[in-house]
């Protein structure tokens, strides 16, 4: 097929009549084959066929509709790993985009994975190592995510999010939930890998929820980052303080301090509940215009 013909073929183009018959499927195969072969290499006849087809209103409409489908498929943004995972979990397309678009979300997810892996590795390296690390750090993981998920200075689209009808509080809530739903199962996995039992395995959970609740509630007053840092610092001071007091006697492990005993756990559950109520009650504050130029959000 590829070798050049030994003679110049006469200049030939698809005649209007043949074109019409071809488009109407009104010619036999030998002739249609000729037309088709010719069309592949003749821009003139391609243009002639195009204008012939586009001249017909209904086929032009079909071609235009088809083009819109082509460009729509071309434009479909790739959802990335996070987006696809969320969609797989049944999160609707636009919510997945709201959650996954912010780079801070990816960072906080990676951070939680790394931290949890760190727990597991540190445990594997030191068979008799303390579980204290997990108990202290686990509640801080979602805090880091929530603190960076949204807010002035964290989110470059903060201003556009603010002026949009979709409320900022919803964006904040979606992302916080996404962080919480990633960090909690991961930490749980780490705890299981470390084969902690009972309260030791789950001792971080209620404090974690309590701290998350406090951070969210506080975020209705100040930037989430400031809220997260304040709550996180308070937690560390509390744990270290309580531990230091009870560890005057050599050998008292962190998990036996009051925080991880039933009393402490119940207290954190109450804190979580109260904070959640407060947060929901004050959620609307995230949507109103801000008071000052940079400070509050």
């Amino acid at each position, binding site marked *: 097929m590829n070798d050049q013909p030994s003679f110049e073929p006469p200049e030939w183009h698809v005649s209007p009549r043949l074109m019409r018959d071809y488009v109407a499927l009104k010619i036999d195969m030998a002739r249609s084959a000729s037309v088709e072969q010719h069309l592949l290499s003749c821009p003139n006849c*391609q243009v002639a066929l195009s204008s012939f087809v586009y001249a017909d209103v209904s086929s032009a409409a079909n071609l235009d509709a088809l083009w819109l489908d082509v460009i729509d498929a071309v434009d479909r943004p790739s959802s990335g790993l996070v987006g696809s995972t969320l969609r797989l979990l049944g999160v609707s397309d636009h919510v997945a985009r709201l959650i996954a678009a912010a780079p801070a979300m990816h960072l906080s997810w990676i951070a939680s994975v790394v931290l949890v892996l760190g727990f597991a590795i540190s445990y594997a390296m030191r068979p008799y190592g303390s579980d204290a690390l997990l108990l202290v750090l686990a509640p801080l993981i979602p805090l880091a995510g929530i603190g960076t998920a949204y807010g002035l200075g964290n989110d470059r689209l903060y201003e556009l999010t603010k002026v949009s009808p979709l409320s900022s509080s919803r964006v904040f809530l979606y992302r916080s939930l996404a962080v919480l739903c990633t960090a909690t199962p991961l930490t749980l996995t780490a705890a299981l890998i470390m084969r902690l039992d009972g309260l030791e395995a789950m001792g971080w959970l209620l404090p974690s929820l309590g701290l998350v609740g406090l951070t969210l509630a506080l975020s209705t007053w100040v930037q989430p980052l400031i809220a997260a840092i304040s709550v996180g610092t308070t937690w560390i001071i509390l744990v270290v303080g309580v531990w230091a007091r009870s560890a005057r006697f050599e050998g008292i492990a962190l998990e036996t301090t009051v925080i991880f005993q039933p009393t402490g756990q119940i207290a954190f559950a109450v804190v979580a509940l109260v904070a959640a109520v407060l947060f929901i009650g004050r959620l609307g504050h995230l949507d109103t215009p801000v008071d000052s130029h940079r400070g509050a959000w």
Partner: protein
Amino acid sequence: MRDSLSVARDAIDEMDDDALIVAIADGSRIALHVLYERHAPWLVIRLRRRCSDPTIIHDAVQDTFVAVWQGASRYEGSGAVAAWIWGIGVRRLVGQFRKTNKANFLPLFDSDQPGMNPSQQVIDLASAEELVLERVEHGDLAHAINRLSPELRLVVQATVLDGLTTREAGRLLGIPAGTVKTRMMRAKQEMRSALT
């Protein structure tokens, strides 16, 4: 609305197909549109001769131009762009049948329908065949092809003219690959005896 675009659009309209492909590889959606307007019409018409289900054709053409968009940077530029597009298009059509597992209802050529005037066809044929079938004893070959039964003719079309493999042709025509082979052999025999 088109106003602000007209400048860029005009420049791209002037481009030949190869330049369009380069522009598409560079992310030009306007170039893709121009390419679409040039090549989608004949592609649709040509596919209509291979499949009578408009939604399948719609999807195949859509897939084709999406593949052009994605594959433009890998286009090597040998041969006509139209031939490249056809190669993608006919395989996307085959792919549609693999995907949907539907039977292909092939359109009949008009010559198969009763009431056609055979002599009329012969007159028109004289000009059309010159180009493609020039290297063969064309008139006779055309007659030989047209005289084949519809099943045999479709196999010839799919394998010889459309460049499909036996397996692809089988998918398109909704018959096993083995049947494609035997029909192709019979077609060759019939054509050979018609030509001698």
